[in-house]
C-alpha cells in the first residue's frame, strides 16, 4: 500500500470542543479497527483564537495490515488534505488561503455562521466581510463543498458544535466507519449524550440530503411593505422614492407628529427638485434623493433621552427582551436599563439662552479638570415606578420643538441640505457623495457631536478648496467619509486630510492634568 492515510483538517475556534471532536474520531477509528493519529495546535485556544486539529486514518483495518502501521504525518500538507471541516466561515476561508484544500482532492464542510473578528466589530460603521465572497473563495478550491449553519443546529439541539461536526463527517463518508460506531462513541461520552446525538443526526441528514452543495448565503434584504403609500408621497414624488419616504414618514410621525413628517416631505421636495434639474444622463435615478431620504429621516428623528425612554417603555420591546434572554413562561425577569443623562441632554430641552448659560457653566467646570456632570442610572424598568418614569420622560417630546437642541439640529441639517442642493447644480455624483455623508450622523453625546463636526468640516473644506476636477472632489469626499468612520480619535481623518494636501484640523483645547514627578 503506498497510498497516504485519509487526512482530515479541522478548523475551529478555541472552546468549541475541537479537542472533544478529535478524541471522538480517534475512538471511532479504534473501535472500528483502524489505526489513527491526531495532532493539534491548541495553544491558548480556550480563549477564542483560531485553532486547527489534524487527523490521519489508515485506509485499511489494522488486521489487514498485519499490524504494520504507516508513518503518520503530524501536520497537514497543502494540497493533499482529503477533507476540511470548519465551524466558522472565515476560518474555512483562512484554511483555503493557506493552500490546504485543493480542487482535485478536498471535500470542504463548513458552517456558514460567522464569529466576527475584533477589527470587523470595532469599525465605525460596517467592517464585516461579505459571507458571499468568503463562500466563493471556498467553492473554488475544493472538489465538493457543503456549507450550512452548524451553530444554528447546535443551538437548536442544545449541544456543542462539535457534535454537529461529527454528524457531518460521518455522513460525508470520508472515513470507512459505520454510522453506529460514531453514535456509540458519543453515547459513551459522559455528558449531554442525547443532545449531542440529536445534533449529530441533524447534521447527518443535512449532508445526506444535500442536493445543491452550496447553501446560498442569504443576504438580508429588507422588503418594504408597499401596501399603502401616503398620498402626499405618491402624488408628489417619483416612484423610486416611495418606499423609503413612506418609512421615513411613519418614523417621523412616531417620533414627533404629522406636522414634523410633513416638514420632512417639504425638505425632500427641495432635493428632488434640485436633482431633477441635473442633466438626464446624470440623474442616476434620483441617487442623491435616495441617500438624503434615508439620512434626513434619521437625522430629523435624532436620538435623545426622550426617544430612548419611549422606545424602552413599549410592550414590543419587553417581548423582544424575553425572547433574547430565553426566559420561559414560569421565569420572572427583571430588566435594568443603563442610562446616563448629562447636562447637555437637559440643556437640549431648555430655551436657547438658558441652555447656553448652562453649557458654558459645564464647560468651565470640565476645564478645571472636573468630571462632566451626569446621572448614571440603572433604571428598573420592570417595576411600576420604572415604567412610569419612562412614560413621563417620553411625554417630554411634546415640548421638544421649543428646545435648544432641536433648533441646533435643524440649522445643521439645513447646511447639509443646502450643500447637496448646491452640488446638484454642478454634478449629480458630487451631490450624491455629499448626501452619503449623512451616514456620519448617528448616536448620542460625543459620538453624535463628532459625527456632526466631521460632516460640517467635510462640507466646508471641500467647498473652500479648489480641486482640479469634480471627480477629485468626489473622491476626496468619499475618502473623508471613510476615514471619519474608521476611527473615533480623528487620526485617520486628519491623515486623510493631509494626504489630500489639506492641513489637519486645529487641535481642540482639552484640560491638561499635570502629573507631579519628583525624580
Amino acid at each position, binding site marked *: 500500500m503506498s497510498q497516504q492515510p485519509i487526512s482530515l483538517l479541522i478548523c475551529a475556534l478555541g472552546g468549541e470542543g475541537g479537542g472533544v471532536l478529535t478524541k471522538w474520531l480517534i475512538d471511532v477509528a479504534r473501535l472500528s479497527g483502524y489505526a489513527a493519529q491526531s495532532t493539534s495546535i491548541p495553544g491558548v485556544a480556550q480563549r477564542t483564537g483560531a485553532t486547527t486539529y489534524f487527523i490521519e486514518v489508515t485506509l485499511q483495518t489494522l488486521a489487514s495490515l498485519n499490524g504494520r502501521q504507516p508513518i503518520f504525518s503530524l501536520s497537514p500538507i497543502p494540497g493533499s488534505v482529503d477533507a476540511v471541516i470548519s465551524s466558522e466561515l472565515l476560518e474555512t476561508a483562512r484554511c483555503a488561503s493557506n493552500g490546504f484544500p485543493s480542487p482535485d482532492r478536498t471535500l470542504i464542510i463548513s458552517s456558514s455562521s460567522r464569529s466576527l473578528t475584533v477589527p470587523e466589530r470595532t469599525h465605525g460603521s460596517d467592517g464585516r466581510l461579505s459571507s458571499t465572497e468568503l463562500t466563493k473563495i471556498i467553492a473554488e478550491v475544493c472538489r465538493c463543498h457543503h456549507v450550512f449553519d452548524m451553530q444554528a443546529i447546535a443551538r437548536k439541539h442544545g449541544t456543542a458544535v462539535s457534535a454537529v461536526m461529527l454528524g457531518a463527517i460521518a455522513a460525508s463518508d470520508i472515513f470507512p466507519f459505520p454510522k453506529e460506531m460514531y453514535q456509540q462513541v458519543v453515547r459513551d461520552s459522559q455528558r449531554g449524550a442525547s443532545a449531542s446525538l440529536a445534533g449529530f443526526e441533524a447534521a447527518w441528514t443535512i449532508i445526506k440530503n444535500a442536493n445543491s452543495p452550496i447553501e446560498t448565503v442569504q443576504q438580508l434584504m429588507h422588503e418594504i411593505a408597499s401596501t399603502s403609500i401616503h398620498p402626499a408621497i405618491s402624488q408628489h414624488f417619483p416612484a423610486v422614492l416611495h418606499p423609503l419616504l413612506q418609512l421615513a414618514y411613519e418614523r417621523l410621525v412616531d417620533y414627533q407628529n404629522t406636522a414634523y413628517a410633513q416638514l420632512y416631505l417639504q425638505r425632500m421636495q427641495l432635493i428632488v427638485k434640485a436633482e431633477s434639474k441635473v442633466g438626464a444622463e446624470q440623474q442616476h435615478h434620483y441617487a442623491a434623493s435616495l441617500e438624503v431620504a434615508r439620512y434626513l*429621516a434619521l437625522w430629523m428623528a435624532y436620538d435623545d433621552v426622550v426617544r430612548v425612554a419611549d422606545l424602552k417603555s413599549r410592550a414590543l420591546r419587553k417581548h423582544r427582551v424575553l425572547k433574547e434572554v430565553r426566559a420561559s413562561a414560569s421565569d420572572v425577569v427583571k430588566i435594568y436599563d443603563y442610562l446616563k443623562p448629562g447636562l447637555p441632554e437637559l440643556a437640549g430641552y431648555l430655551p436657547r439662552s438658558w441652555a447656553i448659560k448652562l453649557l458654558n457653566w459645564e464647560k468651565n467646570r470640565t476645564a478645571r479638570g472636573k468630571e462632566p456632570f451626569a446621572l448614571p442610572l440603572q433604571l428598573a424598568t420592570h417595576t411600576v415606578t420604572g415604567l412610569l418614569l419612562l412614560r413621563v420622560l417620553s411625554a417630554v417630546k411634546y415640548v421638544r420643538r421649543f428646545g435648544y437642541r432641536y433648533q441646533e439640529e435643524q440649522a445643521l441639517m439645513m447646511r447639509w441640505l443646502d450643500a447637496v442642493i448646491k452640488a446638484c447644480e454642478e454634478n449629480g455624483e458630487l451631490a450624491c457623495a455629499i448626501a452619503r455623508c449623512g451616514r456620519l450622523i448617528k448616536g448620542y453625546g460625543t459620538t453624535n457631536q463628532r459625527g456632526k463636526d466631521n460632516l460640517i468640516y467635510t462640507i466646508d473644506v471641500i467647498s473652500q478648496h479648489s480641486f482640479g476636477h469634480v471627480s477629485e472632489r468626489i473622491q476626496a469626499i468619499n475618502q473623508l467619509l471613510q476615514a471619519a468612520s474608521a476611527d473615533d480619535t480623528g487620526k485617520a481623518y486628519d491623515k486623510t486630510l493631509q494626504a489630500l494636501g489639506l492641513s489637519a484640523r486645529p487641535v481642540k483645547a482639552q484640560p491638561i492634568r499635570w502629573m507631579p514627578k519628583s525624580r
Partner: protein
Amino acid sequence: MEVSFKEEIASLQLGAGEVFYGEGILAITKALLQSGVAYVGGYQGAPVSHLLDVMVQAKDYLQTLGVQVQACSNEAAAAAMLGASIHYPIRGAVTWKSIVGTNVAADALANLSSPGVIGGTLIVVGEDYGEGASVVQERTHAFALKSNMLLIDPRPELSHMVEMVEHAYALSEASNMPAMMELRIRACHMRGSFIAKDNKKPKISQHAALRDPADFSYAKLAHPPATFVHEKLKISERLPAAQRYILDHHLNEHYEGKQTDVGIIIQGGLYNTLIRALHQCGVADVFGQSDIPLLVLNVTFPLVPEQITQFAENKKSLFIIEEGAPAYIEQEIATALHRKQSTTHLHGKDLLPAAGEVNAEVMMQGLVKFFKQALPELDTQPLQAALAATATRRNVIAEKCDAQLPARPPGFCIGCPERPVFAALKMAQQDVGPLHIAADIGCHSFATFEPFSSGHSILGYGMSLASRAGVSPVMQRRVLSIMGDGGFWHNGLLTGVQSALFNGDDAVLLIFKNGYTSATGTQAIISTPDEKIKSAAVDKLMSLTATNTTIEKTLEGLGVQWLKTVHAYRVSAMRDVLKEALTTEFSGLKVIIAEGECQLERQRRIRPWLAELLKHGKRVVRVKYGVDEDVCTGDHACMRLSGCPTLTLKDNPDPLKVDPVATVIDGCVGCGLCGENAHAATLCPSFYRAEVIQHPRSLERLVAQLRRVFFNFIQPA
C-alpha cells in the same frame, strides 16, 4: 484548578501488556513512572502543562509508589530540584516550556551540569517553536551545547518516545550528564497508543529514605577549583561515555536505501514529516521504506562523529535537515567531515530557509532542490507542479481578498476580569494622556491585540516592573507596569517590587489578582483561594479571590505604602484609581490590585452548583446583558472598549439604518462589563441587564403578575 484528570490518572496506572491510549505528553508522563522516577517538578506552560497537572492531581497514587511531586514556583526552582541526583542515585524529572523556561533555569542548569549527576535526570522541555508558539523563537539546543547536557529529539511515535525516556535515564547515568528531551507542540498533543509496562517504585524514596547524607566531596560542588576539573571531565569522560552508549544502543536510527549515493541526516522530531515529504516525491512508501538512506538523530547532542562519517562514506551528497537557527548540527557535521577530508557534498541551510519551522512544504521545497543537484535522474516535476499549484491557489485568494483575511488571535475569555481593567485603562489615558506601558507574560498580554492595542514591551515573565526602571527616568509621565499574579510569584516580586522599593522608584504597578496562573492552564498558586473556602462558600457566584490576601500582606510586609485593591469589574472606580496613581503626590511605588476571579475557573466552579440547584427546583438567578436594537447607534464604541466574543454585530433590523447594530449573543455570562462601560464611558443608552429568575419565590411571582396587569393598562404597543 477545577479541571479533573480522572481518565488520565487511570491511564498512568496501566500495567504491563495493557494498551495506553492518549496524548504524547501523557505518554511521556507514564514513561517517567515506568523508568522508576523518584521526584518530579516543573513549571507549567504549553505544551507540557499536562505532565505536571496530571502528576499533581495523581499525588495520592504517586504516594503509593513513593514518587514526590512538586509544583515549583518557577523553572529555576525546578532545575535546582535536580540537584538531588548529584549525590544520590535517584532519578528525577522536571518539565517546562522552552525556550523561556530554560532561560529562567539556566543558572541552576549550569551548576547542575558542572559536577554532573549520578542519578538519571531528565528535563522534558516543550519546544514552543513554529506554528502555534507563544514565545520568542530560539533553540533549546544552545543550552545543551553550552552546559554539556544530552539533548534527545525523539522520532514522534508514542512507543518510541516512551523507549527514549527510558534510554535517556540510562544515558544520563552512563555519562553523568543531565538529559533534556525536546518535544515539539504537535508531538505533545499527538494522540496514539503504546503497550505499557509496569511502573517502577524508586529504590530510594520517601518510603525507603536515606539514613545518612552522602560524604562530603568537594568535587561535587560547582565551586572553584572543582569547576576547572568539571570542564575537562565533560570533554574527556562524559561525552565519550555518552557517545558510546548512543552507538551501543542504536539510539540514532540508520535506514538503508537503494540510492546509496545520497543520504539525509535529520532530527528525530522531523522524521514523520520527512517520510511524508519523501512519499510525495515518490521515493518512500507510507510505512517509512525509503529509497534514500536516512540517519535519524534521536539524540541531537552529543553527535557521534564516527557514526556521521561512516554514514557519509561513499556518498556523493548529504542533506542535513535541521530546524531553526543557528544550524548547530550542520556546523558540527561539517567539521567532522572536513577533519576526515571527506569529499561528500554537504547540503543543509543552503537549500532550506535559515530560520523558522521546517514544515512539510518547506521540506519538500528543500528536497526538490537537493534532488535536482544530487539525483538529477529523479523526476521531481510532479512535486514541483504540486508546490506551484499550492502557491497559485494562495496567490489567487490573496488577490481576491485584496489584503490579508483578518487575523483571529486568542483573546480574553467571555467574562474575563482583565478585560474591564483594560477598558478602564483606555479611559484613564483619555484623561491623563497616553502612557508608556510595560507589559508582561500572561493572559493580560492579550490586551496587546485589538481593541486595546496596549503595551510597549514584554521582557519576560514577571519582568514588567523591572523593565520600566530605565524608561521612567526619561519619561515626563509616569510609566505603568502590568503584571499577573502568576508573574508576580514567578519572578515579579523579587526582580520588580523589591528592586523598586530598594531604589525608591516612582513606579506604578497594576497586579491582576485572578487567583490562578490562568494563561498556562489555571494552575493554583500560593494566592489561590483555599479549597475549603471554595466548598464552604454559600453564594458560589461571588469572586473568591478576596479570601486570599497573600499578595497584599507580602507587599505590605515588604514596605509598600501605597496599595489599593479595586474589584476588576468596577470600571469607573478602576479608572479613577489609575488616574490617582498616575497623578498622586506620593512618589514611591504605587500598587493597584485588580481583583476578580479567573472566569474560566469561576465557571467551572459554579456550573455544577447551578445545575444541582436547578435539579432540585431551587431559585437560580441567571444574568444576561442585551442591547436594544432600536436604540443602538451602530457606531460600535462599546466594542472598542470590550472585544468580548459575545458582544458582536447583527444586521440592522431597521430598514432606514444601514450600519449593523450591536447584539449580545448566547454565551454571555453576565459579567457586567457592558453596563459598567456604558456608564463609565457614557456610551449609548441601549444596554440593559436582564435577571432571569428560575424557580422564583411565590411572592416574587405574585409581584410579577401584578406588574403585568398594571403594565397592560399603561404600556403602549
